[in-house]
């Protein structure tokens, strides 16, 4: 197989894993001001995310780094074309990162309230912006021989916004399920009730997205040509239905795994639909950035493949271990006696 194709697959996997993992951090962060009724519940939510959010975010850094190393032209153009959107994303991620660490560092209610707002902002905007960005990539950016013809506001087209909303709802559902498996008591009841209800909204948005995708993008063409790949969106749909099945059985762990799978497969569906483009041009396919016209040299790709083959499995192994260390529910008593908690 050509190295470009290997790296395209890896690129898709990195983004899919990233959204699957940081997705519940974002979702729980968006729900945080609404679900938690007092400071202890708020701390419980933060502390379910505390041990893992940072490791989750590194999947983003790695996706960015992999784009740079494997498809430098795409990295350069994507990041400079989407300058303002990425800037807002950066600011939000910075705010989120410090707010987890800093909120608990003072008892002052005003201090904590300030960071509460920061956690919401730092979770909601990345979710929305990632959706808008990917919606626009699915749709294609107005690129021609002269570069980018759009602006920040042209990203806010209906399809981009629908994808943004899809990401937000998907992540909120994911976050609600995370809290359903990680918390206890009333907080837990509120989270699981919400997960059950929100699913209907998720279903509606997902359907709108899929139909809209047909009219506004060319993502389905690949599936039309190579129907075997339809298995991926099919799994996404089954997993989406699985969320409902398991939430109604109150088996939230399986529901959470279903939402992991849903997010992974929806992202993968989009990425497969893009192939061989990384950023299609909405003006003419001649200007699209593909894995062939924007990739690194075969030599570099070979080196990077070796690095990925050796280290990615190791990373996955110790991340799974870390999730196992922190498995199980977190009670208010746990965080009261654990002084190092956030």
């Amino acid at each position, binding site marked *: 197989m050509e190295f470009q194709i290997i790296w395209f697959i890896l690129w898709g996997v990195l983004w899919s894993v990233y959204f699957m993992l940081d997705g519940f951090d974002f979702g729980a962060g968006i729900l945080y001001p609404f679900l938690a009724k007092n400071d202890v519940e708020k701390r419980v939510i933060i502390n379910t995310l505390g041990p893992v959010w940072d490791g989750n975010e590194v999947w983003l850094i790695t996706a960015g780094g992999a784009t740079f190393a494997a498809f430098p032209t795409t*990295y350069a153009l994507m990041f*400079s074309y989407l300058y303002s959107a990425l800037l807002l994303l950066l600011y939000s991620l910075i705010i989120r990162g410090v707010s987890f660490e800093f909120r608990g560092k003072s008892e002052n209610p005003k201090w904590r309230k300030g960071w509460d707002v920061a956690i919401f902002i730092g979770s909601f905007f990345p979710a929305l912006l990632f959706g808008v960005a990917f919606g626009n990539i699915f749709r294609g950016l107005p690129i021609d021989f002269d570069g980018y013809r759009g602006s920040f506001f042209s990203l806010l087209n209906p399809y981009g916004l629908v994808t943004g909303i899809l990401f937000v709802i998907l992540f909120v559902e994911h976050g609600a399920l995370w809290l359903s498996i990680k918390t206890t008591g009333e907080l837990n009841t509120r989270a699981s009730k919400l997960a059950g209800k929100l699913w209907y909204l998720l279903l509606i948005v997902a359907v709108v997205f899929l139909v809209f995708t047909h009219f506004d993008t060319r993502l389905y063409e690949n599936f039309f040509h190579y129907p075997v790949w339809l298995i991926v969106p099919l799994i996404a749909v089954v997993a989406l239905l699985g969320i409902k099945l398991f939430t109604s059985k109150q088996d939230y762990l399986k529901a959470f795994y279903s939402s992991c799978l849903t997010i992974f497969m929806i992202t993968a569906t989009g990425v497969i639909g893009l192939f061989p483009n990384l950023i299609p041009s909405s003006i003419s396919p001649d200007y699209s950035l593909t894995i062939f016209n924007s990739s690194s040299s075969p030599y570099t790709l070979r080196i990077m493949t070796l690095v990925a083959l050796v280290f990615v499995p190791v990373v996955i192994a110790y991340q799974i271990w870390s999730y196992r260390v922190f498995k199980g529910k977190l009670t208010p008593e746990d965080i009261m006696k654990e002084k190092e908690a956030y």
Partner: protein
Amino acid sequence: MSIVDLSRWQFAITAAFHFIFVPLTLGLSILVAYMETKYVRTGDELYLKMAKFWGKLFLINFALGIVTGITMEFQFGMNWAEYSRYVGDIFGAPLAIEATVAFFLESTFIGIWIFGWNKVSKKTHAFAIWMVAFGTNLSAIWIILANGWMQRPVGYILRNGRAEMFDFSALVTNIYGWIKFLHTVTSAYVLAAFFVMGVSAYHLLKNKDNRDFFKRSFKISASFGLASAVLVSFMGAFSAKLVADYQPSKLAAMEAVWETQRNAPFPLIAIPDAENERNSIEVLKIPNLISILAYHDPNAEIKGLKDFPKEDRPPVLLTFLSYRVMVGIGFLFILIAFIAFLYSRKDKLESKPLLLRIMLYSIPLPYIAAQLGWIVAEVGRQPWLVYGMLRTANGVSKSISTTQVWGSLIGFTLLYGTLAVIDIFLLTKYAKKKPEDDLSPVLKLNGTQEV
């Protein structure tokens, strides 16, 4: 200001801000890991108390290092798209490797360390902080190898309208990158050591209790600091030699040498005057010293700035002054660390309030030196983005507007300014706190707990 100037300011501000936090992370992680290991080995709870107290300061600082680091990776593409496109084939690799081998390690194990006191065995817990220390130092290797490549590009070939990698081993064995890495990490260890000594000195001056705690913290960091301070200057001397070999225009600016000359003397005091291409003041010359420092040979020829076309010269005054002050502070570190080491060994710290006060007020010095070092490295590299290969002006993104970059620059300045205030507030608050006596949750720790 042009897009290039604005983008340069933005990169400088965000990189400088990022590097306020990085060195303390690099050094303090090792000190905390050492303290916790001592606890595991000896069972002495004072060490556990130390790991927790310094660990808290470590974490406040660590959080900002992480979040400001994301900015750096994004900015190459956002503001320097032409650069990224031109060199991404070789420059992107170390960045991606850094994320894969180092960032995952530190960010996963920091979670175990913060939240795992009651979840994993003592040994595993100490192992976690070692992995954090290892990960942060490993990430420094990769990012500085990337920077080393910009200083001394190797292992590439100009093909298909860009720099393509043809020898990965040349990239990872680039002597320029390695010496720079060693110079940087040892300076980070000095910074962490001075931080711990300074905060300990504060407590020894102010409080009657916890004497043993802070004396021991001081002692550990004094030897760490002294060894590192000596190493920094060696690595610095090495670096200067490499600059002479590979970046003659940077060397000329660092030493403010205008005329090409053999037996170049080192003026103790000089003030460069770029407009008139001379030094307006130049006194107390030590014969041959620049030639010796640069080439280990008194007769060696130093190429003067006048022999570089004007458009190829770096800003002289800033490079020169930063270099001078950095080296000056560097020697001061050895002196201070030596005295601190001596008195802490003799257990005479408490009777030396002046020394303690000096240690307290020395906390900012390594921070200043580190920033100046980067100014020498990066301003001295100008007008090149990749030395001798790509000019800074040619690396900037084509699709961004002045308004956009003004907006982002102002945004970063406001956001980072706020974060700086919060960080200083928190660090001061927690540095002044007394170490916690109640270690009860940890004492319940079951050494054989399943992991």
